[in-house]
């Protein structure tokens, strides 16, 4: 015969474990609900794939020192900064590809950022170096200055020479102006800092005028 106190203890333990089980079930349900709510509050739409559009790239050729227009189809975001970045990324991908007419390693990843700012009036050479990127107070239709921030590794691995460095600068400037005609001036930074030259030759302390670069392309001469 089981003693009475043991029966009572058994019943108490049974009730306790049932109650604990119920509480755990409740807690689990509540957390699950909370998690689902968080998930629901996140945007359900996947980031829209930018539609494929045509872009004119000015592709450099070391053999004859020319920069020639070629049309490519690529996904282009609506935002002008992202658009400029995507176009330059495609240009540098061409240069990094095997059999390139202007071989430069790095490709798309070499463009850290592209910022468009309202172009300064007057003498562009007087533009202070290291303009702080800002999208505030942008004139909706005025001429724009593109600040192209290149990565340190792109500059470090760029072949050194007057022709090759000049062609890289010319093709970037001409490509920006061809696709975003409001870009009339271009400045270059390396890892966010002003830099004296690209790889020992081409002057990066200046503001390049895109109209000037189009007319100075060797192909025109």
């Amino acid at each position, binding site marked *: 015969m089981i003693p009475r106190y043991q029966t009572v203890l058994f019943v108490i333990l049974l009730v306790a474990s049932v109650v604990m089980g119920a509480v755990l079930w409740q807690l689990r349900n509540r957390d699950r609900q909370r998690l689902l709510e968080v998930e629901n509050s996140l945007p359900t739409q996947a980031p829209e794939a930018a539609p494929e559009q045509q872009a004119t790239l000015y592709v450099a050729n070391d053999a004859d*020192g020319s920069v020639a227009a070629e049309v490519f189809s690529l996904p282009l975001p609506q935002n002008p900064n992202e658009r400029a970045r995507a176009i330059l990324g495609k240009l540098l991908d061409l240069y990094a590809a095997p059999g390139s007419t202007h071989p430069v390693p790095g490709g798309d990843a070499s463009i850290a950022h592209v910022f468009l700012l309202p172009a300064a009036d007057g003498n562009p050479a007087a533009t202070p170096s290291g303009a702080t990127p800002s999208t505030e107070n942008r004139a909706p239709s005025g001429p724009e200055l593109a600040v192209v921030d290149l990565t340190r590794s792109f500059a470090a691995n760029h072949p050194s*020479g007057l022709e090759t460095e000049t062609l890289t600068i010319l093709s970037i400037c001409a490509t920006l102006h061809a696709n975003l005609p409001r870009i009339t001036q271009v400045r270059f930074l390396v890892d966010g800092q002003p830099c004296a030259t690209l790889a020992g030759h*081409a002057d990066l302390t200046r503001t390049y005028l895109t109209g000037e670069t189009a007319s100075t392309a060797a192909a025109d001469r």
Partner: protein
Amino acid sequence: MRRSTRLLAVLIAAAVSLPSTAQAQSASSQAPPAPPARFVVVLDAAHGGSDPGARIGGLPEKTITLALSVRLRSLLSARGISVVTTRESDVTLSSERRAEIANHADAQACLSLHASMTGSGVHLFVSSLAPAQPVRFEPWNAAQAAWVLRSMALEGALNSALRHAGLTVTLGRTLLPIIDNISCPAVAVEVAPDDESGRASTQAAAASLDDPGYQARVAQALAAALVEWRSEGASQGEDIGADQP
């Protein structure tokens, strides 16, 4: 610090340009025929010292540019042309200092010599500054603007001599501090590998740049162009270094 050096450089440039204009004015006021002006060429072996320039095979660009400068200097001296060089040894020189040397020389031509592994033949570059009328106090970093048209004429003379020697020539415009700061006809000359070897292999390309035969061909063509440039100036009966067209 940097700004004050620039200011000093502007003052020096102004000081240099004043006597030269005075000289030009006195020359034009004299009765013809004008006495033959001293013909001076500035040779700038680019890079040097802590700035090795491009890597060409096992050699730094600075060594090749110095060798070319020395070779060209003796060819020009042999033809009775006075030569001023920016460096004769492996020393570090700022582009401001190089321009200062060039501007002090009161030269009729300045060649900034480079070498590169990309492309082939010889690349000639003139400043892409927009041509401007000469002014009394020109901005230090845009002194070349007043000389761009003369520089393009010099580039034309170099181009035809190099082509005549069977070399491939590529013409371009660029913004290069040393050239932009010079007040005389100035061209940057970049020697790239020989046409055929450039396409064969990297080693062959580097070897061709280091080849004395190829260097001699380029130097002789450049010297011939400068002799032509001197006679062109003499036949025009003017001091081509001091006057604008």
